[in-house]
């Protein structure tokens, strides 16, 4: 996990973050957005810490909305 509290990125860019307590390892996110999310051997998401590329922003939003545990978020920076 990148230290999201101090991390600075280009203005306007967004990053995916998972709340590891809320996450139940459904694996929906890794299926919908394999470009940025993979599942570990127990089914929990490993998320690309870099900003979401503009071309994937719409997909990322859809993936966030699809998380059954509401554990995935897009955060600024």
């Amino acid at each position, binding site marked *: 996990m990148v230290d999201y*509290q101090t991390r600075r990125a280009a203005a306007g860019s967004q990053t995916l973050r998972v709340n*590891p*307590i809320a*996450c139940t390892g459904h694996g929906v996110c890794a299926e919908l957005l394999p470009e940025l999310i993979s599942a*570990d051997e127990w089914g929990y998401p490993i998320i690309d810490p870099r900003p979401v590329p503009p071309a994937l922003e719409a997909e990322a939003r859809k993936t966030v909305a699809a998380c059954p545990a509401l554990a995935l978020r897009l955060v600024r920076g």
Partner: protein
Amino acid sequence: MTAVTAEDRTARTDPRTPGLPRLLPRTPEDLRAHLARHGRLPYRGHPGLLIGDVKAAGLTGRGGAAFPTYRKLAVVAQARGRPVAIANGAESEPASHKDALLLRTAPHLVLDGLQLAAEAVGAAEARLYLHRGASHEVLRALAERAAAGTDRLEVTVAEAPPRFLAGQETALVSRIDGGPALPRFGLPRVSERGVGGAPTLVQNVETLAHIALIARYGPRWFRAAGTAAEPGTMLATVYRPDGQCTVFEAAIGTPLRDMLPDLAGTQALLAGGFHGTWLAAPRAAQLTLDNETLRRHGASLGAGVLAALPPDRCGLGEAARVARYLAAESAGQCGPCFNGLPRIAAAMAELAGPKPRSRTRQDAERWAALVTGRGACHHPDGTVQFVRSALTVFAPELDAHQRGRCSASNRRPFLPLPDGMPATEEDWV
């Protein structure tokens, strides 16, 4: 450098650092003895005023994270709402005894620090967070102060469950709010929204005791001990290779050999405790008691635990016991920690035994990488730090085990672990 052991409470003073001990009196002090030695509480009369002194002193948190204390004070003081100030005495690391000793011998110094820190942030409430069955000296000290009217804020005692993560800041807030002592995830920080939604200052009890001294004697006095980067003294729980445990008050920057004269002849040093780092003994014997030096070697002071493993013990066996404890102490809230730590512990148990499978070490390394940075709290990362450094420092022993041999001649456990393993959900409250 001053040593206080369970058997011998006579403090010894190292002539090279005048003015020690600062924190630990020769015998436990009641309110009268405490006031005779240090004088009355130097309330500043207004919030904020003490923060500049704490900044000039360069005090850092003594609970393990070594965060600059003035910054925490300043954030809480500036946050919206009336803050809550909490003294964290839930020393949950089984190998650490320094907070318990401080609460037993100098409870008034800690309680002074709590009052002064509370005033500095403008707190409306003060709490003291302690383990069940904590020293009755500190409870008696609270009663003495209530009778004498020394405290401006009444202090409420809150009880911590006997769990490794009970003193973790967000777990502490959850417990004081009436819930289980489980870590929470994400923003806002407790300094902005903690207990009951109020800005919350959580300070380790040793940090508060230093604040009580800085308020009286000033930043220049504080900086007369320690290094320029890390001023002051600190309490350290030191395990000698013969198993004897001593709490030292030492100036930061003191050579580790001053506390462990036979360090070079031991096997390895565990620095920082169960979330800490194993260092090979010849290297450790050259180091000093400060983060600047230890971090260059991948280690840190943590909460001040130093354990010198004697040559007759199996380092892998010790690491496996602790890894099993740490896996059992996972809050079980985050998938990678819940799944990864028991697997890492099982791999360590196999590596500590005869003829481990050749892929077990790679499994342990893979799981270690997989859980790092993926918990709501620091527990998986701290566990990985401990396990990885064990695999590095005890690599020759690992080779021996793979050939079916163990170099240990003494099977008695060295590092202290609590009796039995916590098992039930209620243990979190």
